[in-house]
C-alpha cells in the first residue's frame, strides 16, 4: 500500500479507521514505525495526544479516559510490551476497552540482537495476561485488522493488541 512517491499510505488509512471509531485520546512512546501515525494525531485538535515516559503509563491513561467516556489508542513498539504487563491487570480485570498498536522489532532484517528477546516474548506475554493478539503482515491486512480490533475493544470491552510485522515496516535504515 505505497503511494505514487513510494511513501507508505497505511498510516493515513489507520488514522481514518481510528477517527471513524471515535478515538479521542492517543498515547505513545516515540517509535520510528509509528512516526507518520503519531504526526497525524499530533496535528489533530480533536484528539488529545500524550507522550509517555514508559508504555505502561498509557495503559492506565486509557482506563482513565474510558472512565471519563472517551475511547483511546496506545502506540508502542514490541520492546514496550514488556513494560506493560502488570499494568494490564487493570483493563483485563476491569474489562476496560484497550487498543494497542505494536510495531514489531527483532523479527525481520533486524540488526540489533537486543531487540530479539522481547520480540519473542511479545505475543506470549500479552496472551498470558489476557490480551487478545491480532497480527498483520501486509498493509492491506493491517487496516482491516485494526478496524476489527477497534470493534473488539470498543464494542465488546476487549483488550486487544495488533502486532504490526517488521517486514511490513521495512528494513531500518541507518
Amino acid at each position, binding site marked *: 500500500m505505497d503511494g505514487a512517491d513510494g511513501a507508505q499510505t497505511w498510516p493515513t488509512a489507520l488514522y481514518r479507521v481510528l477517527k471513524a471509531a471515535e478515538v479521542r485520546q492517543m498515547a505513545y512512546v516515540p517509535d520510528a514505525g509509528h512516526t507518520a501515525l503519531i504526526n497525524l494525531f499530533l496535528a489533530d485538535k480533536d484528539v488529545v495526544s500524550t507522550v509517555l515516559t514508559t508504555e505502561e*503509563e498509557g495503559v492506565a*491513561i486509557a482506563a*482513565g479516559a474510558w*472512565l*471519563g467516556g*472517551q475511547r483511546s489508542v496506545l502506540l508502542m513498539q514490541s520492546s514496550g510490551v514488556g513494560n506493560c504487563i502488570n*499494568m494490564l*491487570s487493570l483493563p483485563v480485570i*476491569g474489562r476496560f476497552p484497550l487498543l494497542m498498536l505494536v510495531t514489531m522489532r527483532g523479527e525481520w532484517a533486524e540488526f540489533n540482537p537486543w531487540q530479539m528477546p522481547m520480540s519473542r516474548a511479545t505475543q506470549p506475554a500479552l496472551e498470558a495476561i489476557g490480551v487478545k493478539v491480532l497480527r498483520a503482515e501486509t498493509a492491506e491486512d493491517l487496516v482491516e485488522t485494526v478496524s476489527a480490533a477497534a470493534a473488539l475493544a470498543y464494542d465488546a470491552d476487549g483488550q486487544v493488541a495488533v502486532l504490526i510485522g517488521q517486514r511490513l515496516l521495512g528494513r531500518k535504515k541507518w
Partner: protein
Amino acid sequence: MVTPLLERRAAVAALLKDRGDLLVVTGLGSPTYDVHAAGDRDDNYYLWGAMGGAALVGLGLALAQPQRQVLVITGDGEQLMALGALATIAVKRPRNLALAVIDNQHYGETGMQASHTGSGIDLAAIASACGFAASGVLRTLPEVEALAQALRSTAEGPRLHVIKVAADSPPRSMPARDAVFIKNRFRAHLGFAAG
C-alpha cells in the same frame, strides 16, 4: 516541640469533606481503604492493583472530563513506582488534576517496610521540578482543610501535595473488589451507559 503526625483517616476525611462534584481515583492499599472509610460513592474509582497507575488513571480521566476536578489519592509507595508519571502529567499540564500522596514513609500493605520518602526523597519537590503548578508538604489538619478548599477550583496546572501521616494501620474499610462493577457505577454517574 514536635508536631504529632496526622492520622491518615482524619486527613483523608478532611480532604474529602464537602467535596462537591470532585471525581476521585485511589491508589491500591491504604488510600483505597481511607477513601472508602470516608464514604463509598459512585464517583470514586478504587484501584486494588496496577501499582503505579493511579495518577495516570487520573490523567486520562482529567483529559476526558476537562470541566470536572479530578483528585487522585494514593500512597508514597504507589507514587514512587511511577516517578515518570509526574513528568508525563507535567507535560500535559491538566488544570483539573490534583494528586494527594498520603505519605506514611512505609509500605503498609506488605508489613511496614520503609519507603524512599523516609530517606529524604521529596515527592513534592520532584513534582515542583517537573513543573507542577502547585506542590507542598502538609503536616496539620488546617493545612489539609485549606487544600480541600483549593481543590474545588481549577489551577494553572497539575498539583501534588504530600500529606505526612503516622505509620499506623487503621482497620481496613474495603470497597468492592469487582473492578467492572466499580467502573460501570462510575461511568453511570457521569451519564455513560454500561457497555
